Structures are given as structure tokens and as C-alpha cells.
């Protein structure tokens, strides 16, 4: 709250300095702006930037990292009774102490005797530290703003190159913005690697990548039976692969054929109607596909297979019939098929672009030689577009591997190493969701294993994307 008020005040102040500086520039110029190096507004902006930006940065830093600093200060000198507790209880204690000051969810822990006193003392300390940080930031921001004004304001002279200075500021801001993209990547990599590293402290990477059993349930207390989970991710990889294969079997032919038809055969009118419709299909949120899979496709498939099975029971395929009669809603086939539907527009629009990029002269040449359209497509256009289409399919695979909602809602939770599409399987993304939804403590291998899975997922999709983008780039250059 304090931060917002301070920021608002700062904005007003810096706005005021803008007008003051612009006025001064006009006065210095003797009323003729042409006497100055830059337009008066640039002098205004120059001063306003020096007043506003550094001070705002200080305030934002304090708001972002204040609570971390406060926690670190509190933890640096814990009361003796607290020091005796284990690390987790200490965290709870400090969180509770801070919750009393800042509001927020306190734990159910009841503190008695010395601990209650310590809690009081710690929260008092927390209050004073956070106030020091808050007011300190406020004071230093005000000082910095004033200093900025004192430095920048006297610089307003006719020969001062204000525009160039302001443009430097703008350039710096722009560079900062484009670095955000790099920072995001670094953030992703760093958080995944760091948490996975913590996970691999307790489970070896070899066991994780090649282990055949996945059972991350860990008992709440260390002495409970079955307190060690199994973290072999092979069943998850198998499930992901199975669902992805089914999805590609649906998406690749339908997507490719519709792309070919749209780019080679369809009249402009058909294109104008069909393309937006496919775009709608692409715009449907994945949770809707999940709903469709779980409540429509799943039951339909199940009753179909159950019905099929009921015919076979008693016949030569009795065992198969018995199996089919017991098939459940949640099967790899359902998730895969619906994911395939989701990928159709993705495959088709990417392939459409690529097919359109094949020069018309190649088609004209082939047609002039007497080839039919389909022969032209099959023998000239497709071979020319093949690398691009492969890249499109790779991107679709990467999408399928990373897709979450459909599988979460339709595939199931049982980790099995199977290639049977009628079996219930689980995937990497489903497990990440299950492991991390709900309130879990953050230090158990169970939660951390989600980051191990996330790292694997990130590595796989990144590799696929890099390969695909390379292919596309290389291919594009051929005809440009």
C-alpha cells in the first residue's frame, strides 16, 4: 500500500518536474525553441526521467525483495528455543511470526511458554525490520529523486543535447525489455535445474530415467510403512509416447490432407470459409477438449468396446472379449484421439504455409509436362515441401508431449509401461499436475520429482523445437 502511494506521489512529482523543465528550456531559449538543440519537451522528459526512474526502481526493489531481506534478518539471529527446533519447524515459526505482523495464514501450531514469548519478540522484530526497510526505501527514494532533480535541472542549456540523452534512456528501456525474454529462459532453466538437482540428491538420475516403477506416494512421517516412493519415470515416458503416437496418427493424415486440399484444390471461397473454421478449432481452450474427452469421447469409446467385447465372449476370441468388456473410460486412445483433433489445425496451418511457399513455377512446370494435379502434389510439391512438413510434424509432436489438460482429464493416473491403447496410462504432464496441485510441503522428493519431470519435458520439447526451427529456416532459404 505504502509503495503504491509512494509511486503515485513520485509519478506526480516527476510529472511536475517535466513541466518545470520544459518551461525553463523555453525561458533559456528566449522563447524561441529553435535556439535550443532539442525540442523543449525533451528537456522536460530528461529531467523527469532522472527524477522518476531511479527512485521508482528503489521503491520497486524494496517491495519485491523487502520480505526476503526481512526474513533473512530474522533468521540470522533466532531465539535459543527456536534454534533447537528442526529446520521445518523453524520455517513455520518464522512464517507465523511474520503472519502476525503482515496478516496472512498462520499455521495451526500452538506456541507455549518460552516459544510464545519468542514468537511475540520475533514478530515485534519483524515489524521493526519491515518498517525500517519500508521507510528506508522511502527516504532513499526521495533523496535519489531530489538528487536527480539537482543534477539534471541545471543542465538545461541551449547547447545541451537533451534529445539524444532521452533517446539513450528509451534505448536502455527497450533493451531491458528484450532481455526479459532471455531472463525468462534463464528463470525456467535455473528453477528447473536447481529443483531437479535437489531431487537428484535423494533419487539418482539413473534410477529416475531408467527405473521401471513410478510410485511417488510418500508417507507423511518418515517411520511409516512404505515411506520410500519409487521414482522410475519409464512408465510415464511410455504413456506420453503412446498418447503422442495416437494423437499424431489422427492429426498427421487429417491435417496434411486438409492442408494439401486447401492450398492446391480449394476455391478461394472454400479457403475463406474453411480456414477460419479451423482457426476456431485451434482457438478452443484445451480444458474444453479435456471436457469433451472425459464426458463425451470416453463414454462413447468405452461403450463401443464393451459392446464389441460382449459379442466375442464365448467365441474363439473369448479372452479378448472379456478384456474389451471391461475397458474403462480413461484410456490412452481417448486422450490421444482428442489430442489429435486439437493438433489438426496446428498441423494443417503450418503445412499450408509450407506448401504455399513452394514456388508456383515448380507446379506450372509439372502441370505443363502433363502431370495431373495429384501427381504434381505427390511428385513435385510434397518432396519440395518435405523438410518443412517434417518440421511441422515435429512441432506438433512437441505440442502433444507438452499438452496437459486433455491427458489430465482423460488419460488417468495409473503408471503403466504399456503400448496398449485401450489401457489407462499416465503421462509426464499429468504427473506434474498431480504432484503439485494441492498444498504440499516443498521439500519432499515427491514434490521435487515434478521438477525432474519438468526438466525432462523441457529438454525434450526444446530439442524438438530447435531441430524443427533449424529445418524450417534452412528450407526457407532454399526458395527465397
Amino acid at each position, binding site marked *: 500500500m505504502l509503495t503504491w502511494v509512494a509511486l503515485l506521489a513520485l509519478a506526480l512529482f516527476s510529472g511536475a518536474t517535466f513541466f518545470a523543465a520544459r518551461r525553463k528550456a523555453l525561458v533559456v531559449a528566449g522563447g524561441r525553441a529553435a535556439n535550443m538543440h532539442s525540442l523543449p519537451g525533451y528537456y522536460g522528459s530528461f529531467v523527469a526521467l532522472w527524477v522518476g526512474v531511479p527512485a521508482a526502481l528503489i521503491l520497486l526493489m524494496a517491495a519485491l525483495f523487502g520480505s526476503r531481506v526481512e526474513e533473512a534478518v530474522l533468521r540470522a539471529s533466532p531465539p535459543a528455543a527456536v534454534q533447537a527446533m528442526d529446520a521445518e519447524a523453524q520455517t513455520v515459526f518464522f512464517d507465523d511470526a511474520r503472519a502476525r505482523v503482515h496478516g496472512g495464514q498462520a499455521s495451526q501450531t500452538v506456541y507455549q511458554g518460552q516459544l510464545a514469548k519468542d514468537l511475540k519478540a520475533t514478530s515485534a522484530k519483524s515489524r521493526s525490520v519491515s518498517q525500517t526497510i519500508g521507510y528506508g526505501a522511502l527516504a532513499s527514494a526521495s533523496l535519489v529523486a531530489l538528487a536527480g532533480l539537482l543534477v539534471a535541472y541545471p543542465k538545461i542549456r541551449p547547447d545541451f543535447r537533451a534529445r539524444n540523452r532521452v533517446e539513450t534512456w528509451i534505448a536502455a528501456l527497450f533493451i531491458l525489455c528484450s532481455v526479459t525474454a532471455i531472463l525468462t529462459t534463464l528463470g525456467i532453466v535455473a528453477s528447473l535445474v536447481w529443483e531437479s538437482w535437489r531431487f537428484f540428491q535423494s533419487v539418482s538420475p539413473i534410477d529416475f530415467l531408467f527405473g521401471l516403477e513410478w510410485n511417488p506416494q510418500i508417507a507423511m512421517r518418515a517411520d511409516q510403512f512404505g515411506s520410500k516412493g519409487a521414482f522410475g519415470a519409464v512408465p510415464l515416458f511410455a504413456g506420453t509416447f503412446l498418447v503422442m503416437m495416437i494423437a499424431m496418427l489422427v492429426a498427421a493424415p487429417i491435417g496434411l490432407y486438409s492442408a*494439401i486440399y*486447401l492450398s492446391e484444390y480449394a476455391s478461394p471461397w472454400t479457403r475463406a470459409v474453411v480456414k477460419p473454421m479451423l482457426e476456431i478449432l485451434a482457438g478452443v481452450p484445451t480444458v474444453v477438449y479435456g471436457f469433451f474427452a472425459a*464426458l463425451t469421447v470416453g463414454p462413447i469409446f468405452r461403450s463401443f468396446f464393451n459392446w464389441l467385447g460382449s459379442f466375442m465372449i464365448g467365441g474363439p476370441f473369448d479372452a479378448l472379449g472379456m478384456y474389451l468388456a471391461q475397458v474403462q473410460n480413461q484410456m490412452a486412445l481417448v486422450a490421444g484421439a482428442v489430442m489429435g483433433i486439437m493438433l489438426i489445425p496446428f498441423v494443417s496451418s503450418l503445412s499450408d504455409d509450407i506448401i504455399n511457399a513452394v514456388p508456383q513455377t515448380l507446379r506450372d512446370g509439372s502441370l505443363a509436362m502433363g502431370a495431373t494435379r495429384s501427381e504434381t502434389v505427390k511428385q513435385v510439391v510434397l518432396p519440395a515441401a518435405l523438410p518443412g512438413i517434417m518440421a511441422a510434424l515435429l512441432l506438433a509432436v512437441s505440442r502433444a508431449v*507438452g499438452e496437459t*489438460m486433455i491427458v489430465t482429464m482423460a488419460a488417468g493416473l495409473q503408471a503403466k509401461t504399456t503400448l496398449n491403447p485401450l489401457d489407462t496410462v499416465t503421462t509426464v504432464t499429468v504427473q506434474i499436475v498431480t504432484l503439485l496441485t494441492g498444498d504440499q510441503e516443498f521439500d519432499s522428493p515427491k514434490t521435487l520429482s515434478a521438477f525432474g519431470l519438468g526438466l525432462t519435458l523441457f529438454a525434450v520439447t526444446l530439442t524438438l523445437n530447435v531441430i524443427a526451427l533449424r529445418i524450417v529456416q534452412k528450407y526457407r532459404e532454399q526458395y527465397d
Partner: protein
Amino acid sequence: MTESVQAMPLTLRARVEARLKTRHAQEMRFRTYGRVAIFVALAFLAVLLGRVISQGYSTFIDYQMTVPVFVDPARVDKTDISGTNFDLLIADQMLVRLGVKDDDYGSKSDKVMDLISNDLGFQILARVKADPSLIGKTVKISGPVKSDGALYFKGEMKRSTPQEERKLDNQQLGWLDKMQATGLVKGGFNTGFFTRSDSTEPEQAGVLGAVVGSAMMLVVTALLAVPIGVMAATYLEEFAPKNRWTDIIEVNINNLAAVPSIVYGLLGLAVFINWLHVPRSSPLLGGLVLALMALPTVIIATRSALRAVPPSIREAALGVGASRTQTVFHHVLPLAMPGVMTGAILSLAHALGETAPLLMIGMISFVPGVPESFTSSATVLPVQVFIWENASERGFHERTAGAIMVLLVFMIVMNLAAIIVRRRFERRW
């Protein structure tokens, strides 16, 4: 040998014609495959939307019960109003109105209570609490019929199904018919679905909290992703020297655009929650995560919009003495704006439908009200769909589809806005 056995050598023309026939047949087949593929894709779209609408339209119909309730002084303790069982009070009076006499065990009033939403009881409680002088008077209240009863009115629970297989028995269904016949229950448009938030009772659950949560989250996303994305794209397209660094940034952005959304959820969990202590399940947190996710697409869209502005514009501006920055701000960006806005709206629409990363950052928690601030707990539309889809009560099924319809309407509105912006301001060079 006789002539008939000896094969006549086919003339070249006949051979070509025979071959041509198969080639044309091939051509037709190939064309049909394409048509079939498109038909299948569009059929999927139709089935998908058809299913959502057929399952969800009934959400927008609602059966409201309007009853006068005598706040019996004998049953309401003035000193402890909250302790009164208002549900039972309403049920007993409903029994009288239906002309049914209860047995000694009160089993019939229990059965009536199964038909009346406890929302009515809460309403009376709130009104009596606010104004204790109502005790001894008659209060008229209206509220929804309990979900199972509404399903019967909507024809989803049928009398023809055996009694054991439905939630309500024949007697209860008879009462419901009587209530409708006497005008105690009336069907109408379900405004409650838009004015209420999530609830554990299907008939009281609405999307308001989720819609507000989505809007707040989208505001955060838009305020972060659009300016940062546009500035980053402008830098890369207009200012940046072509060197190793900018190449890295460019490759990086392309790759970020294809990172699975769930990974952004992991990032949010590790960085924003555990490191920066942004409050869990808040619109602020969701907005931050989705902003990072939308950033690459905004950048890519902005860059292509900037690229579409012809160089002659830039050269003209530079020619009359504008600086590079002035050229960009005064000429290039305004001309690219329609494209930029279209791209921004589309990536925000995508962010609106995103679910997976939000599950990671705790947005799945049950939030029974409208979020009060950007840092309080909230839920958003797609997550609300997910939560309701998991609920076991039958009444939530239609609400799931109803919420999807609301979500789709928002998506369609945003996409239309993008199309309108593109059409309205599009410029051909």
C-alpha cells in the same frame, strides 16, 4: 493358335487412354481424401461445439422457488438466531402447503428439504439477523430449487427410470409437480449463474467469481506482456544491430513460444512463489505467469507487424531529419499498431483459455466469492471448468458445459475484436 487367344497389340493411344483412366481415378481419389479430411476436421468442430451446447444450454434455465415463510417465534430463539434450523422451518411450511402430514420422525420434512436449496434458509437467516423484528412476521423469499429437483424439471431425471436409480423418489417428484402446478416454482433465465460464485451446491454455483478473476488476471497479463513485448519487438526490429547477441535473443524467443505451458507453471511456482513470495493463487501471480507465457507471441506478432511497414516510410522520416527514435515513435509504430493490437488481443485470448500453469500455482483452490484484490485468492474461468468437471454431483455437469459456453463467448468476442481491428485499420501498401 486361333486369333482369339492371341493378344492384340494395343495401340499407343489405347494404352495412354487406359492409363489416363487410372490416373484420373487416382486424381479423384486424392481429391476425395482431401475433402474427407476437411470434412472430418469440421465435423469434429461441430460435434465438439454441439456437445458443449447440448450439455450446457440447460444451465441457463433455472427453477426458482418463491415462498412466503412465517418466521415462527416459537422456533426462532431471539438470543441465538443463527442456531435456528431455517431449512427445516421452510420444509415444514412447504409440507403444509403441499397438504402432506408429516410422521412423527419428520422423515417427510427431510425429503422436502432435499428439494429446497439451503440458499433460502441462508436468506431468511440473513434477513432476520439484520432485522430481528421480522420474527413473528411472514417473509417472502425466493431461491433456486435444489439441483436434483431442477434436473427433474429440465427432463434430465426421468420418471421412467426405476426409483432406485434416481436421487429422488416418486413421492418427491409428485411434490415437485405440485409445486410447479401451484406456481410455487417457476422456470426462467438463470441470472444466478452470472451473479454468484463457486459453491459446493450445484444450484448455487455461478461463474461471477471466475469471470472477475479471469478479468483481473488478464489485466495484469495485458499490462505486462503488451508493453514489454511491443518494446522488445521494436528494439529487435528497429534498433538492434545484427550481431550474435540479437541472434541469441531471437532464437530464444522462438523457442520460448514453443515451451509447454506447464513449464511456465513450474517457473511460477519456483520463482514467483518460493523465491519472490507472490501470494499463491492470486490474480497477480496468474497474470505474471501468463504474461511470461504470452510475451513471445506478442513479440513475434509485433515484429511481423513492424516488418509490414514499408521502408519508404522510415526513409522519408529520416530524410526530413527525424531521429531513429522519432521515426519509430511518430511513424512506424502508429502504422504498425493495428497489427500489434491484433496480435496482442489474440495472445491474450490464448492466455484467457490457459489452464495448466494455473493449476501449478494454486489457482485450483475453492474460492466461494469474488476476489477482493489482486493479491487475494481467486479462480479463473478455465480452472473453474476443470474444478466442476471433477465434481461428482450430477448438477455440476451442466454447469461445467455452461461455464465453457461463457468462456467460449469471451474467446469469440476477443477474436472478433481482433478481426475487426484488422479489417478496420488494415492498410495495403
